[in-house]
């Protein structure tokens, strides 16, 4: 963090002008969103400040327990967030599967990424461990959220197709193939799109961070490529695990569509 530009508190506060502008616009257009905007801004600020202090502490007191604790909190929050953001009703089995898919998919990608691709040491070095975990978990969370919605929506809008296939002797797996494939597709599409725009439309997360912290752009790009691939792996793995088990919760033991 040697030649990184520091901004003063006053400069930082001046950035809140963007929120003021936003608030002015919604008030002028009479869009009832003021409360949400203020809450979101406050949460963002408070959460980041707290996390900042937390990270300072964790970076200064490197310990595998802290790293593991942080990733546990992230996973828990991600799973909870998927439940909250899915507007449609979910049964208990589906929730269980979401949690298992989220944790096992991201962890598998995370372990491969850390021990085979990046190989930092010690393995719990919070400077790598935490941001990498954050990116894999965050993207898988978005992917599964999209997948869950597409799956539930597919089973409700294409119920007749599923039933017609079952009546012809299809297994639940065969009968839901179209829905599952569509859900997979919509879940990974944002990740694929972000690879397409990578470097041209945005220089995201890790790369910005690495450049800001003083490393050369080429080093930053190597990290960015690696992390993009890692994210893709993590998203596809967790989404496919979710879908592989998730569609089954829509059927009962007698291969009948529930509901």
């Amino acid at each position: 963090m040697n030649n990184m530009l520091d901004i003063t508190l006053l400069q930082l506060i001046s950035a809140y002008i963007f929120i003021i502008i936003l608030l002015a616009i919604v008030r002028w257009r009479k869009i009832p969103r003021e409360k949400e905007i203020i809450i979101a801004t406050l949460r963002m600020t408070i959460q980041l400040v707290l996390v900042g202090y937390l990270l300072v502490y964790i970076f200064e007191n490197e310990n595998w327990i802290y790293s593991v604790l942080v990733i546990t909190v992230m996973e828990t929050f991600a799973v909870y967030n998927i439940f909250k953001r899915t507007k449609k009703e979910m049964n208990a089995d589906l929730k269980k599967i979401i949690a298992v898919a989220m944790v096992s998919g991201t962890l598998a990608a995370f372990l491969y990424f850390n021990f085979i691709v990046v190989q930092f040491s010690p393995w719990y070095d919070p400077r790598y461990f935490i941001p990498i975990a954050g990116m894999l978990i965050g993207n898988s969370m978005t992917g599964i959220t999209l997948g869950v919605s597409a799956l539930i929506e597919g089973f409700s809008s294409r119920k007749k197709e599923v039933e017609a296939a079952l009546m012809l002797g299809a297994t639940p797996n065969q009968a839901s193939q179209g829905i599952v494939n569509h859900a997979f597709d919509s879940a990974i599409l944002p990740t694929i799109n972000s690879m397409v725009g990578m470097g041209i439309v945005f220089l995201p997360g890790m790369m910005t961070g690495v450049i800001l912290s003083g490393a050369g752009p080429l080093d930053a790009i190597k990290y960015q490529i690696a992390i993009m691939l890692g994210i893709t792996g993590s998203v596809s793995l967790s989404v496919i695990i979710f879908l592989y088990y998730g569609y089954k919760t829509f059927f009962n033991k007698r291969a009948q569509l529930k509901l």
Partner: protein
Amino acid sequence: MFTFSNVQYKDILKIEKLTFQDKQIICLFGESGSGKSTLLKMLNGMLTQDSGKIFYKERLIDDYDPVELRKKVVMLGQDPVMFQGTVRENLLFGLKFTGKSEADDSKLKELLKDLRLEKNLEDDADQLSGGEKQRVAFGRVLLMEAAEVYLLDEPTSALDEETETKVMSVFTQHIKREGKSAIFVTHSKEVAEKYADQIIYMNEVLANEEISE
């Protein structure tokens, strides 16, 4: 072939005794809402009764693997369903699951003729009219030669009389020739009397009127 004994499903259906004979074409006849579709769905395990027993070939339906049962007792639902794709893909859709018989284009074209469908195999199934969709769905089931019993829920409800007659006679000949069984639902008394070996009147088999009232 099928035997019902004290079967109850919610408050929709209650049947004390009912037998369907093998190698027959049987028509289920009854007013709307009397439970014909519900009854058909129980015969191939799409619905399970709350109490009582249903046998298929002397064996409890609950004891069959539901997917294996449905390959033998194939059902055409009341609303014709088209899957994304061409007429050909839709006709072949059911065969994918049984994986036994094959059907080449000449056979499919023959089938289209039997069904009086003047469409190409490449046509988009979604563009078909309601009655055309119904015939494609009918054809899809007819191709499934591994089936022992065909359950057809109002297979010709959207067809004009002439087409209906043609389709039903092709179908019944097919059933007789292959020595199979069929149970179909219709609202047309004429169709019932003309094509069925036996007509089962829902109001005669249902026991719930006296119970629930």
